[in-house]
């Protein structure tokens, strides 16, 4: 019998993308549970009952003290053991936007040489210093081990953040690139990843939009695939529809499909 894929979405404390993220996994065939962080910390639910863990977007604790800081801190002090086991079990974790900031603060990405819970990369304030909502072009790196970006070439997704500039020390950055941990890069309309603002909306080093750990099973990204499930979300859907070229689904769906497929094939 095929595995029932179960996805856990942590909510609460100012996180806010639970509905669309749940929808994304559901249309790809996963069961989803939206569980408040407190109920998880109180052991009302067991993390080991799930296959995919999602750190969603939002403003946990208002981004006070830096995006992801207070939330990651709470998890680190009260939930680290459970997370370690979840990672060791070969399951999947995705952090989107605020979730990516939390993953980086927790040291779950890039976690070089399998060293989890040591922070080596960060998401700093955008170069503009401002929050920005726009659509960006992205290119997936074919050599990346990332499970979530398999078979993706180029796509468009919305970004909406004030702290999304990916930074790390030179040595860390070198290792990230050598190990192909960059899964997604900002690029121009034509797919050229040598780009600048507004194509690279935040000034990220090497135009990095998303990275994974060395197993490819933990993935963090700033753009929002869960906000592009419908073809009518695209900023240019009308011209496409009028010329008969509108796809059936939004370009963000593939990330979730890949994750659910992976669990089905491996568990």
């Amino acid at each position, binding site marked *: 019998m095929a595995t029932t894929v179960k996805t856990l979405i942590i*909510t*609460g*404390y*100012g*996180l*806010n*993308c639970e*509905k*669309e993220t749940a*929808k994304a996994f559901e*249309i790809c065939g996963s069961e989803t549970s939206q569980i*408040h962080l*407190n109920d998880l910390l*109180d052991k009302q639910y067991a993390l080991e009952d799930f296959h995919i863990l999602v750190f969603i*977007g*939002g*403003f946990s*604790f*208002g*981004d*006070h*003290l*830096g995006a992801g*800081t*207070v939330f990651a*801190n709470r998890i680190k*002090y*009260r939930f680290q053991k459970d997370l370690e086991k979840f990672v060791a079990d070969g399951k999947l974790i995705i952090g989107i936007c605020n979730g990516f900031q939390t993953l980086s603060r927790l040291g779950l990405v890039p976690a070089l040489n399998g060293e989890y819970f040591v*922070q*080596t*990369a*960060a998401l*700093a*304030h*955008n*170069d503009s*210093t401002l*929050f*920005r*909502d*726009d*659509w960006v072009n992205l290119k997936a790196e074919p050599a990346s081990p990332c499970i979530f970006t398999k078979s993706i070439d180029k796509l468009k997704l*919305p970004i*909406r953040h004030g702290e999304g500039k990916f*930074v*790390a020390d030179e040595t860390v950055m070198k290792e990230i690139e050598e190990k192909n941990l960059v899964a997604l890069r900002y690029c121009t309309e034509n797919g050229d990843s040598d780009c600048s603002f507004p194509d690279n909306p935040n000034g990220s080093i090497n135009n990095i939009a998303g990275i994974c750990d060395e197993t490819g099973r933990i993935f963090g990204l700033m753009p*929002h695939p*869960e*906000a*592009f*499930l*419908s073809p*009518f*979300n695209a*900023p240019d*859907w*009308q*011209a496409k*529809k*009028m010329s008969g070229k509108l796809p059936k689904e939004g370009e963000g769906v593939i990330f979730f499909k890949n994750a659910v497929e992976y669990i089905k094939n491996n568990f």
Partner: protein
Amino acid sequence: MEYRIEISTLPKWHDARGGAVIKQVSDYFEITLSDVKTRDVYTISADINDEEAANIAEELTNSVLQKGVVGETKLDDYNWLVAVGFMPGVTDNVGRSAHEAVGDILGRKLLDDEFVFSSVEYMITAENLSRKDIEHIAKDLLANELIESIAIFAKDEVDTTDLPLNFPAMPDAESGIVNTYNLEVSDEELVEISRKGTLALTLDEMKVIQNYFRKAKNREKYGLTANPTDVELEVLAQTWSEHCKHKIFDAEIDYEDENGNKEHIVSCYKSFIKKSTHEIGEEVDWLVSVFHDNAGIVKFNDKFDIAYKVETHNSPSALDPYGGAMTGIVGVNRDPLGTGRGCELLINVWGYCLGSPFTPGKDVPEGLLHPRRLRDGIHKGIIDGGNQSGIPYGIGWEYFEERYLGKPLVYCGTVGLIPTKIGGTPGHEKSIEPGDLVVMSGGRIGKDGIHGATFSSEELHSDSPVQAVQIGDPITQKKMGDFIREARDADLYRFITDNGAGGLSSSIGEMAEHSGGCRMDLAKAPVKYAGLQPWEILVSEAQERMSFAVPPENIEEFRRLAEQRDVEITVLGEFTDDGKFHMQYNEKTVACIDIEFMHSGLPRMQLTAKWMPPVNVEPELPSDDKLEEDFLTMLGRLNVCSDEYKARQYDHEVKGLSVIKPFVGKERDVLSDATVTMAEQLSKEGIILSAGILPRYSDIDTYHMMASVIDLAIRKIIAVGGKPEGIAGLDNFCWPDPVKSEKTPDGEYKLAQLVRANKALYDYTKAFQTPCVSGKDSMKNDSIMGGKKISIPPTVLFSAIAKMDDVSKSISLDAKFAGDDVYIIGTTKKELGGSEFFAMLGYIGNDVPKVDAKLAKATYRAVNVITESELAHSLHTPAIGGLATGFAKVAMGGRLGLDIDLSAVPAESGLTIHELLFSESNSRFIMTASQENAAKIAEILKDIPFAKVGSVTEKQELNLNGANIAIPISNLVEKYKSTLAGV
């Protein structure tokens, strides 16, 4: 022990906050700073040791980006240090989050007497600035002294001593003090009691109160004397404030028009607004709940109804633009949250009327904030409030006019979804039974926001109370909102409403009407600090609070859920049916007023209104050879140009529902007429939002201003593919004081303007079958500052909401394909009175645009047939700036050329080219469509004035034949985007 923890950006990374200060100091004051470094400082006062403090510093620091230390670091290479903290008692959101984080690190919750305070230090390098210059930067940019403290040090002062600890704890003070007022005094003294207490009660109202307490019976039974307590006077002042009671809209008015025709109007609200809605309600079946709840509710589908409310938050934003605007948006979020048994919040809207950000500093009266600073602060407040709440914005706009210098108008609104059924009964219905518990949830009560309701019922003057300013915390509210949804779905409460203006006094006061009374002990209310008196607890407008009626059998479950969600709830008393609003403090009665008197004891105001149409000077039109220049100047004007730089700082994609976005077109950079949002992820059905605002028309006749804003909002709905049937409206009136007095000698004219706007509202909402389902008025938008009175122009925002049956049929304004035909639908008339073009020339004129409702309705029906049949490729409705702006937007949106024959445009005869292009006649569209559909379109439009006027071209040029101008699209874009680029 007290510790100072300092977190700064590592030198190898850019200090983004410091960079922003350099830019703003240059933008605002034209002062160049060589460098600004910043650091966050946390003062921790808790039972911890050195090792724990060091660990806290390490954990709070993002080690890749930042350095964190315990204690103070002395820096080299700067000249001045400015420390900005909060004043005692002011909400410190960052400090509160740090408080939680410290608890996690220590493995125990911090106690109430353990504090974490946040502050920011700016190290400024600028060789030639004096302490006075630094003070100017600190006071006029870095901090708002109403809520924040400033300390300035020269580098050598910092080098030789330790910086003082930022420790803004409230001093201990006595609580529970109740005073009584002797109202058996002279009229002058009665007025003085009202003035001194910011009660905003008139002499007549004070006398009604005096009379009530003379006759009140059985007060001694409650331990009260014949004299009212301060609690009682405050309750009446809040309940009867213009802000809460809408006295002017409820007044009896003797109206006389220019021909001497007289009319006696009993309540503009009842005679025009409500009347129209009720009459329409007899004919349509989609009005679910109108006027009596916090937001109006209309039918959406079998699963949901929609609630919509738009508010203004003008006075608080004038004093503290950031805090005032933020509490505006999180405040209006609580309206749908407290409508029916609680909505899910779906979409926010915003709009501001402001003075030009480029106003020379010398033209801003002393005591008023510069409009640029106001604008930046207002935007930032709504951006932070909306983004952090996870609610996308649907529509946003700005309107600039110099009279808004005196008072900015800050409109913010929220759409909510409510299930048609909750626990077996309709979701919009709520009730209270005697015996139900009075429960408050959310933030604690402090002195913040005391007298918000009464102070906004006066003009802005130099001693407007500073404690009226509040700070919002979207995260506390988000937590509460999440909790409410769970409690609602478990059917744990019977009634919910928000605590807004007037605080508990208003919310519980209104709730008590449902059961017939209430008893509440104010000593049980959770407070931020000691020293709050009972009246302050009752009227404080401290944010993020809701009030509930919870059946006693559900209270334990309600409490358990709240605790699990980190939301504070308090049982304050119970609802009764004894007819009394009965307040106690530690079981001693401090107020006991008849509910009937509270809500119905206020006599109607008696006012007179006299209409005399103004006669304005007509401008001489420029010669035709100036057309290209005028065209481009128009496109760059503040009321036409793009404010994308600001708008992109608002999230409009969260929830993944956006279909027609606020900015549209090939490069996503042209402001859309309206927006379409899916109701749920992947739903076929959507919600259309639009707004109309045309304040300059009021300078000619508010009747036609009102007609025009209604038409504008409706035709914008049509322009994105909506249908004319089933549109609901919201009216937001912002007026200068229309009550004749010494301060307002022209009150009768301003009141006549109000009457005329209301007459048009009745006439046109009826004609269009677009009922108002909710509304708001703000009637004292004047400022008396620096010896100068500034009154805003009478302003109505008409917001429209409609259902889109199939979002795939929605349509945007940008031209899509070269070769398409360009159509103009509707007639252009010589209607330039109050237009942007006349304003550009420095005139008002007289020929204000009018609305032919019958023709407009037929036009909208026909256009909807075209969009429903998917025959159009783009659709736009021109408004401010006329066809000139309209053609430019269609062309810029598609980055395609237009080749237009102006002589083909359907128009009144005898118009000059300037008049044709800049007239703001209502009810018109510019449409592009494939040539092959020409015959079908002509058939559909056969009874409507329309014409094919040209075609879409590959050539990147707007070519206007008949005007002999051809402007490259890149020039249009440059003009459209440069005015507010980076501003």
